[in-house]
Each structure stands twice: as C-alpha cells, then as structure tokens.
C-alpha cells in the first residue's frame, strides 16, 4: 500500500513539474515592446470624492492619445528639444535646477517624456490635483520632475525614495511630464566659464606686455 501510494505521489509530482515546462514550450510568450513610461505606482486624488483613474502614456505610444493630448505632448517634446538651442521658458526652469541642486544646466538631460491623464471621473470637472508616485525605468542620477502645466513649464517639488526607487509629487493639473537626469554626476561642474575669461585676460595682458617689452628692447638697440 505504501509503495503504491509512493508511486502515485511520484507520478503526480513528475506531472506537476512537467506541466509548466510543456506549457512554456507550447504557450506563446510575446516579445517586449517599446520604451516604457515610468511605472505608475500609486496616486491619490486631492478631492476625496474624485473617482478618476490615472493613466500614464509614454512618448512611444502617443498615437493612442486623443488629438489634443497628443498635440500637447508633442509641444512638450519640441520645447525640450528647443531648450537645448534657445532660451525658452523651459530653459529658465532648467536653470532653477542649477540653483536647487547645484548642477549645471548643461549637465541636465530629459530622460523620459510622458503624459498622465485622468479617465472615468463622473464626479466633477476639476480634480484639485493628485499625489502621484512613479517608479522610473532608470533611477540612478535622477534629479527631479518637470511638468508642462497650465502656466507653462514648472519644476515640481518631489520626494524621492532611494530604497523603493520611487518619486512622489503633487500636481494640480495633468499634462506632459518629464524626468530630469544629471548626465555628469561625478565630473567637475561644466558650463562654468568664469575661469576661461581669466585665462583670456592673462593671455591678452601677457601678449601686450611681451609686445611692449620687445618694442622697448628694439628701440634701445637702435
């Protein structure tokens, strides 16, 4: 009886262990796709009665957004690209990171651009904002969140949890967001050109002095 039971249990065990293997072989496992948005870990509406659900859409899936939202996201993209070249309002906001984090704006980069929209809220039109927690794809060297709100680009006050690798912030309106990274965490501050002018002045002074001395020496010889 014991042997029969042991045999039976062995068969059950073997079959149970084999099923996942066969399932894996037969089951189609889809390939991963695209660059994801940061993971929306949690959100809390500031209005307790708000029933809205937040959905985060990465740049790579902007085609799924409605026309107006997609246009706003694309405007955000253009602002970011142009801020590298011209001093637009975003550029001014990025300069604030220099003051708050001591990082040159030249070392700052936008690492992720995405949209957060609210759906299925039947209660009201204005939501009084949300407290949002995100988990970015890349954590190291993240410095903050920037947001294209109703009044233009603004740096968002945030709290970072290094252990959970999450960033939490509160916003009163939803629109494109972007994560800001420090591309030069270990190097010296770049973009600091004050030393350059000292060297230029020294060069000019020394060349002028050399010129004057040479002229003086030649005059004496003549």
């Amino acid at each position, binding site marked *: 009886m014991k042997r029969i039971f042991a045999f039976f249990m062995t068969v059950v065990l073997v079959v149970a262990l084999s099923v996942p293997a066969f399932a*894996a*072989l*037969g*089951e*189609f*496992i*889809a*390939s*991963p*796709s*695209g*660059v994801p948005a940061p993971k929306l870990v949690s959100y809390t509406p500031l209005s307790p009665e708000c029933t809205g659900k937040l959905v985060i859409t*990465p*740049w*790579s899936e902007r085609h799924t957004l409605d026309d107006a939202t997609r246009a706003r996201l694309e405007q955000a*993209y253009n602002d*970011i*690209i142009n801020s*590298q070249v011209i001093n637009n309002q975003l550029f001014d906001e990025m300069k604030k990171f220099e003051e708050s984090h001591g990082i040159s704006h*030249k*070392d700052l*980069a*936008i*690492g992720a*651009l995405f949209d957060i929209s609210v759906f299925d809220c039947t209660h009201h039109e204005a939501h009084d904002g949300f407290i949002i927690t995100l988990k970015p*794809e*890349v*954590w*190291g*060297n993240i410095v903050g969140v920037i947001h294209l709100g109703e009044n233009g680009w603004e740096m968002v006050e945030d709290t970072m949890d290094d252990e959970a690798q999450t960033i939490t912030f509160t916003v009163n309106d939803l629109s494109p967001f*972007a994560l800001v*990274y420090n*591309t*030069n965490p270990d190097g*010296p501050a*770049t*973009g*600091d*050109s004050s*030393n*350059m002018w000292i*060297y*230029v002045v*020294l*060069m000019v*002074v*020394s*060349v002028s*002095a*050399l010129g004057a*001395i*040479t002229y*003086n*020496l030649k005059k*004496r010889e003549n």
Partner: protein
Amino acid sequence: MGRSRELEKRYLHIAAVVFLFIFLLSTVLLIVNLWENRDSARFPEGTAGPQSVLEYNGKEYGLKEGVRTLLVLGLDKFDEVEVDTGYTNDRQADFVMLLVIDDNDKTVTALHINRDTMADITVLGLAGEKIGMVNKQLALAHTYGNGKEVSCRNTAEAVSSLLYNITIDHYVSVTMDSVPAYNDLVGGVEITVLDDFTGIDEDLVKGETVTLMGDKALTYIRSRKGLDDSTNSTRMVRQRQYLNALYKKSVECKNSDENFVLNAVLKMADYMVSDCSTNQLTSLAQTIIDYKFTEIKTIEGDNVVGEQHMEFFPDVESLKKNVVELFYVPKN
C-alpha cells in the same frame, strides 16, 4: 649709465621670459578649460575597448589582428526606414548577427545572437544623452534613439559590451521588407521545412523541400506564434538554415554576374541603415562573398519566462569560448 642700461635690459629680458611663460600657461589652461566644457558627446563613443589579453581555461590569449566586424540587425518593421521624430521608436532588433571578417585567414564567421539575451543597455534621453543603464532584452537596445543611426549604435554598444568589449566596426540594419526583396533577387532560396506551419502557411509542410519566394521567405524565418515551439531559439535554427542557403545562392549570383553585389546593395538601400557608404557596403559584401564562409556560431544559454516576456541568459562559458575563438589567438 651704461651699467644701469645693461641692468634695465636684463630686467626687460627677464620680464619678457616671465610674460612668455604666463602666456603659454594661460593658453594651455584655456585649452584644457575649453576641452572640459565642450558639449558632452551626444552618443557614447563606445565601451572601454577589448582586453588585449584574455585568460581562458588557464591559458592566455592575445587579440587577433586583421579582424573586422559587421553587425547586422533585422528590424521588426515593414515600413521603409524613416527617421522617427522622437527619442524612442518601436523598431526592435529582432535579428542580431555579428559577421567576423578575418582578412588574414580570408574567412567569414557569423555569430548569431539571441534577441532575448539579457544585456546591459544604454538608455538615451530626448537629445541622445546617456541617461543610465538597464538590463533588458538585447532587441530593445534599438528602441532607444531615432530608429536609425543612433539606435543602431546603441545596439552595437550593447553587443560590444556583451562580448567582452570587442570592437564593432560597422553596422547595417534592414527592415523586414528587405527579406522577400533580396530573397527574390537571388531567385528564391531552397530549404527543407523544419517545423510544422499548419495554420500559418499550408505550403510549408514539415519535411518537404521547397523554394521560398516572396513573403513565404519572411514567413519561414519570422513566424513564432502558432508553432509548437514558439521560442526565439527555435526560430533562430530556421534563420540559420535559411541564411546558409541564402549565402550559397548569393555566391552563385555573384559568380554569374559581376555587377550582382553592387546592384543588390543599391536595391537594398531603401530598406537599410548603415554607417557605411554605398562603396564601403559593396566592398564589404564583396569580401563576405569572396572569403570562405566557415560557420554560424551561437551562444548557448537558458530561455526563461520572465515576468512578462522571454529572457535568454547566455552561458558564461559558451559566451567566452565564442569570443576567444573569434577574436583571440593563443599567446606563445
């Protein structure tokens, strides 16, 4: 009077030397300052470079000379290659193969790399800056960047990093449209069907020998869903079989038509992104066909179902063995 003049002259000489020194020093410091403050490279130049000496199985191996590499990427998109107006794209590198051209031995060896290989990939920001690293399927390295050169170089960097920092000299990526186009250019490719395509294509019967034409070629090397074994590893076996046959047809075509290689490169240009000019590509293609093709190597490892997707973990021993055999020679 004369003595004081001499003294003045001497002081002037000393002053001239001092100011010359100041001028030279400030010039050097200015150059260093400008160099440090230059705009950081939009794209990383690459990894640290291969080790000149590699230890394997208790022996030392030195880098082989006269070796060039061409990374070939097959993108899972049908469209003609367009620059994506964004910093990310949806073109994964579904097919990854490194051609190793040995100019000393006059041989070409291919290393077929599983697209699901878990590798360290550079994440790029909106303006192409390096933001950080993630460990993901190798195929996804191409989704960072503009879908063209930036994405190709990002993938090349990931492959280099995977293969002990060996140098990737050139890359070429092609979209899926290119498969039937080139397949038909060589007059079709004959293979013996390895898998059961019932429900996918009734003309592809397991065990039968068929000549693949047009989209059937793409179906044969691309299909996974609906097959008994839908892993990429099984698909790679069919891809290698097809490539071996395609290579032989290409050699036949080249031997019968001296303009075949140039015409093929020109025809494929619409489907292709490369860091090579047309002349360089033609020269490379010519070399690959002229040299002796040895084999298509693969890296052994384990397919694991991850949280959501398939993950391939290369066997460390197999990976190193391939790198040593392809790029190193025993040090005497």
